[in-house]
């Protein structure tokens, strides 16, 4: 049984980890709990830590907040990765947990429960509805859930519906091959890959110029605050990059800055920043983003332009522009592009484009896992 905030936060972290929570969700939950417990303990006059009065008050406060297990269950129930349908590859680990708190009466449990089981194609209607309340046509409950065009439903409901719909048809080989073009995640990954050239250069420049400027100024006193400022910027960028990765690559990342443990003074906070492996992992990530960004950008741009060029050969072949693709060597004209090549070029182009989109999909997943490992690794 926890008798102060730190112990409680550790227990909550353990409870969330035991429930299989995502590190990013753990970070958000700890932020909320810390905010609340600190405010509650400060209300009505602060008490000295370790005193009997403090522990007595903390017991009441923790009782009101809920046991770590209860709170963990609540977070597992409402966790939503994002508003869109999760891509089929994503294991909806958060929706598999019983959505005790999903904010919808009656409908929540059946929706959440169906998300794990594949649905027949077109069957977006959740088949389970033990409670008559969840059925639309029940006489007293006509128009339930409230059909409000343009008004978003509670996130839990959206996620449940999205998961039920998104888990649907992935079986046909046709879809497996060409489905990538309809996959919004892949298009978003493409945007991320193109952006990563700019972000990669920016991150690298910030870290390198920041560290070298601060390092060279270290002889003067001004170098120390500059170095600390660099650390602060690195942590801020880690949050920003996390948001970018969540929006574009669809993996849950922290929505709040990482809080330093409570009750720390200024120097202790700095020491925590320095000792926190996350600071250094984030910095390494920012440096690695330069080569990665260049690679991603190059793959995306060259791969897609080659594919489009080959497919588009049908257009310029039609206008006989292909005939001008000649090489004159020793007075002999060689056609390096013949009209009969056009169908082959189109087929090859389609293969290249399909292959590119699959590659982009894998890069997206791989980079998301990498970003998560580097940016949200939890300190012990």
């Amino acid at each position, binding site marked *: 049984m926890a008798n102060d905030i730190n112990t409680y936060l550790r227990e909550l972290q353990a409870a969330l980890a035991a429930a299989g929570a995502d590190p990013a969700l753990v970070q*958000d*939950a700890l*932020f*909320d*709990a*810390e*905010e*609340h417990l*600190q*405010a*509650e303990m*400060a209300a009505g006059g602060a008490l000295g830590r370790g005193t009997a009065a403090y522990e007595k008050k903390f017991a009441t406060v923790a009782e*009101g*907040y*809920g046991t770590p297990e*209860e*709170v963990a269950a*609540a*977070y597992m*129930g*409402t*966790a*939503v990765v*994002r*508003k869109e349908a999760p891509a089929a590859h994503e294991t909806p680990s958060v929706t598999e947990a019983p*959505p*005790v*708190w*999903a*904010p*919808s*009466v*009656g409908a*929540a*449990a059946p929706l959440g429960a169906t998300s794990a089981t594949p649905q027949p194609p077109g069957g977006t209607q959740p088949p389970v509805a033990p409670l008559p*309340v969840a059925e639309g046509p029940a006489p*007293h*409950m006509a*128009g*339930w*859930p*409230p059909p*409000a065009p*343009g*008004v*978003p*439903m*509670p*996130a*839990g409901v*959206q996620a449940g519906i999205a998961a039920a719909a998104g888990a649907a048809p992935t079986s046909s080989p046709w879809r497996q091959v060409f489905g990538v073009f309809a996959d919004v995640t892949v298009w978003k990954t493409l945007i991320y890959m193109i952006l990563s050239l700019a972000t990669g250069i920016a991150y690298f420049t910030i870290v390198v110029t920041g560290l070298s400027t601060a390092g060279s100024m270290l002889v003067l006193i001004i170098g120390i605050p500059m170095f600390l400022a660099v650390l602060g910027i690195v942590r801020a960028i880690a949050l920003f990059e996390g948001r970018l990765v969540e929006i574009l690559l669809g993996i849950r990342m922290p*929505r*709040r*800055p990482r*809080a330093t443990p*409570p009750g720390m003074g200024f120097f202790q906070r700095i020491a925590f920043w320095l000792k926190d492996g996350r600071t250094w992992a984030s910095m390494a990530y920012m440096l690695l983003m330069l080569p990665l960004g260049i690679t991603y950008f190059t793959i995306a741009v060259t791969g897609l332009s080659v594919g489009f060029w080959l497919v588009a050969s049908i257009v310029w072949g039609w206008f006989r522009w292909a005939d001008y693709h000649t090489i004159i060597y020793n007075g002999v004209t060689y056609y390096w592009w013949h009209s009969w090549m056009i169908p082959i070029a189109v087929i090859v182009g389609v293969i290249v484009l399909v292959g590119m989109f699959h590659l982009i999909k894998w890069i997206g997943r791989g980079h998301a896992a990498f970003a998560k490992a580097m940016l949200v690794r939890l300190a012990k």
Partner: protein
Amino acid sequence: MTAIQTTSDRDEDGTGVVDASVRKFQKELSSGIVSLALLALLAHAEKPLYGYQIAKELEGFGGGLPVKQGTLYPVLRSLESGGLLTSEVEPSVTGPPRRYYSVTEEGRQAIALWREAWIRTREFVDAVLEGHRG
């Protein structure tokens, strides 16, 4: 020893089962109601509120908050990711930064419809409980 005996006695006459069912029912019941209460409170509030203030405000209504305060936060976050609430973090003088929540325009539209749904549900349940047919 006495405690163990009491528990087994209670189980035999079914009280333990009833207690557990009450807790389960309360939990299931709360799942939508808490969202409604949070949205309504924030819609009435004149300025953005942070989690602890919200919990304290809710404590003051009726017989007090029927759920643990810690379970409000994930619902707040879920409402935010659904676009009904918006929030911003502001540093506090005394402790960690606080997240202030306020209702979005969509949230205001939603609350009106949620309210209707709630009233329909309440009337339906009351009617069933009292045995009145419509």
